[in-house]
């Protein structure tokens, strides 16, 4: 049963990733500026050299042919050649992916755990205005441009270490905080929670067993979004912090219309998003039946108290 579910997810992920690569390549191909090269403005180049540059760029004009060649290369472990950086894409990925994954990991963990912790604290404290400080702080994080956040951390660099991680954390935090708090507050108003509080169960037990646990499936969905959000934010953050990761690579590839690099990054992002979201879905599926049981058990516990 579980194996069948996993197999289905893997198949879905594979097909979606392949489709994502093709659609991404099509978007790039149809975008303006595809196939041009800034070397065309170099006045030293002869007409023959300029024509050679154009012909080389025109090779990728037929997107179906390009994508077929790309997939054939992918099967051999060859991700293509980046014209903008003049190096094989696989080499670039090998150098840059670990750096981005570490930044994303730290950033998402720090941002999500802080957001969730503050949301839990706000709900547990229950005082009017309890969420004033976190709300203002999350509002500031949302209102400040990513570039400014990144620059602030850069300036603090010698004291706090890798700036991009903290900047990513600050981008993820307000989303996680706001959604978590809303969900936890909504859950806290369910009848069985009110009953549990009235029956005198401790605040901590009510919070953990009857507010957080039923809300956990929705909160798990935040994981996938946080990863997508963090990756999206990593592009400007890595550009500004000059972190040589995948985000900076993606920006460079977009500016240069580097098709093999862009398609590979699209495939990578699709894979990452799908894997994380699939895990969240599996968690949601696993929780949903027991979640009802938990609610029922919670009600039973309250009734028997």
């Amino acid at each position: 049963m579980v194996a069948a579910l996993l197999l289905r997810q893997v198949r879905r992920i594979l097909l979606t990733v392949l489709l994502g690569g093709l659609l991404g390549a099509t978007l790039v191909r149809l975008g303006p500026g595809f196939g041009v090269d800034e070397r065309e403005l170099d006045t030293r180049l002869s007409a023959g050299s300029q024509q050679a540059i154009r012909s080389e760029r025109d090779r990728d004009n037929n997107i179906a042919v390009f994508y077929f060649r790309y997939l054939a290369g992918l099967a051999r472990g060859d991700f293509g050649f980046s014209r903008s950086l003049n190096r094989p894409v696989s080499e670039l990925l090998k150098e840059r992916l670990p750096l981005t994954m570490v930044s994303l990991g730290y950033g998402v963990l720090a941002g999500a755990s802080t957001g969730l912790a503050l949301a839990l604290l706000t709900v547990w404290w229950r005082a009017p205005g309890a969420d004033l400080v976190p709300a203002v702080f999350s509002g500031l994080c949302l209102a400040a441009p990513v570039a400014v956040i990144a620059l602030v951390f850069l300036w603090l660099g010698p004291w706090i270490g890798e700036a991009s991680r903290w900047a990513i954390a600050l981008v993820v935090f307000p989303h996680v905080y706001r959604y978590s708090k809303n969900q936890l507050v909504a859950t806290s108003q369910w009848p069985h929670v009110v009953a549990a509080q009235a029956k005198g169960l401790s605040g901590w037990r009510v919070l953990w067993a009857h507010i957080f646990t039923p809300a956990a499936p929705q909160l798990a969905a935040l994981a996938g979004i946080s990863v997508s959000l963090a990756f999206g934010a990593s592009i400007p953050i890595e550009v500004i912090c000059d972190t040589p990761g995948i985000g900076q690579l993606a920006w460079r590839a977009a500016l240069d219309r580097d098709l093999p690099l862009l398609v590979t990054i699209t495939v990578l992002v699709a894979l990452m998003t799908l894997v994380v979201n699939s895990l969240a879905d599996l968690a949601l599926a696993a929780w949903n039946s027991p979640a009802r049981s938990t609610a029922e058990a919670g009600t039973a516990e309250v009734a028997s108290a």
Partner: protein
Amino acid sequence: MLIRPAIVFLLSGALAASAANELRFCLRADPKTFNPLLVEDESSSAVRYLTGGVLIRLNRYTQELEGELATKWKVSENGRRIDFELRRGVRFSDGSPFTCEDVAYTMRQLMDPALHSPVGDAFRSAPGEVETKCPGPSAATVRFPAPVAALAAQFDGVAVLSAHSPQKESAVLGPFELGEYKPGAYVLLRRNPNYWKRDANGHALPYLDSIRLEIQQNRELELLRFRRGELDLINKLDPDMYDRLSSEMPRAAVDAGPSLDWETVFFNQVQTAPMPEYKRRWFRSSDFRRAISEAIRRDDIVRIVYHGHARAAAGPISVANRFWLNPAVKAASGSDTAAMALLQHAGFRRSGATLVDSGGNKVEFSMITNAGNKLHERMLTLIQQDLARLGIQLNVVVLDFPSLIERISRSFNYESVLMAWTNIDLDPGAQMNIWVSSAANHQWNPNEKAPETAWEAEIDKLMQAQSASQDLNKRKTYFDQVQQIVADQAPVLFLVNPDALSAIGPNVKNAAPAVLDPQTFWNADRLQVGGTLVSRR
């Protein structure tokens, strides 16, 4: 008895200084290639400059040619032939000897049409083979199928490769050799132990042990690191950062004066461009173009956008290019009266607050520029207001660079453009592909089958004449005329020549920033960082 400990102390001090004798500055991007013949981007060019040995070097400070690997040279046959007397006793970084064979090998590689080398293309004045002969191990003769303008100066960009070394391009003749390269992080150059040059006291050059080129795209970060002492120089500063730095570290910020670069505006004059016919008539009218030029307040651009670190430009030669400048050509005055007079002469008139042409069409057009360039965006906004005073509505459009290139080079779907040009060459021969009407870089109307106007035909004739002549004074006369025609017809409106701004750290010695690139490290073999000179004999 006391002398020995003192000597030991001094030596250890010197050794300690040499351990820190590393120059650090930034490249904006990873070098795309370490093959000196294929260099096209700025980062690769910096590495080539520091590692490549050349026969003739243009001294960036004095703007004079100096012999490097060639002790003497002679240009003859009207610019078709150049004879070199090669320096003896020179070795590549791997110890292999430098001979004429290496020059011949380099020229063969360079002129291979399949290579599409920009440096090679600069020599390609006509089809045909380039012959390199070695009358002796220390003599080389290179013969071209047709005259090459400024032949000797072109060799400044030709780094000589080793014909025999197993290290291939890694065996170099310059002051530094490639030590380490960590993609996305840095390039480390180490001193070439076999570098031939010595200073006046016989000390072996370079003084530096190494140069660390950090790969840093973000200019704010670069400035931050310079302030913290993590970098020793910044090769190019923008005006905002220059002012910020000079308020905190006044001696570090250097303004070497106007550079060779241009900020320009040009109009789309392509016959087949997708635009209404009445707009095409505007852009093809020299009165209209000169009127726009007159209306633009260059002094405001210099003061507001460049904070005074620029000079109003009159034509295609910067004031920094002392020999080739035609002093008779003056920058437009920024006078609305003069502008209106030209417009009226061309049949335009005011209709209330709006300018209309003779057909009653409101004068409204767009000007594109590349996004992400704050200086261009500010310039465009100033120009928008300047033209509004004449009743012209200018629509500002910023586009990402590939979209902009596509419009000006492929689809010609634009009306006017604000663009920067980087000039690396003093000689106007390098501008052939801009002024000759049949060239691809004759940007406002490229690849003309025949000159479409009399003045373009005249410019074609003059450019060919200056290219074919070896007499410097005759060439100057021809190009002075080109400058005058350009001023009269205004196919390109020259706005400003930005100053060459850079930053030199307090611990860097012998720095002498120049206006020609590389501004700050053109004399890298003589730069020192802190400490005392380590004597190397």
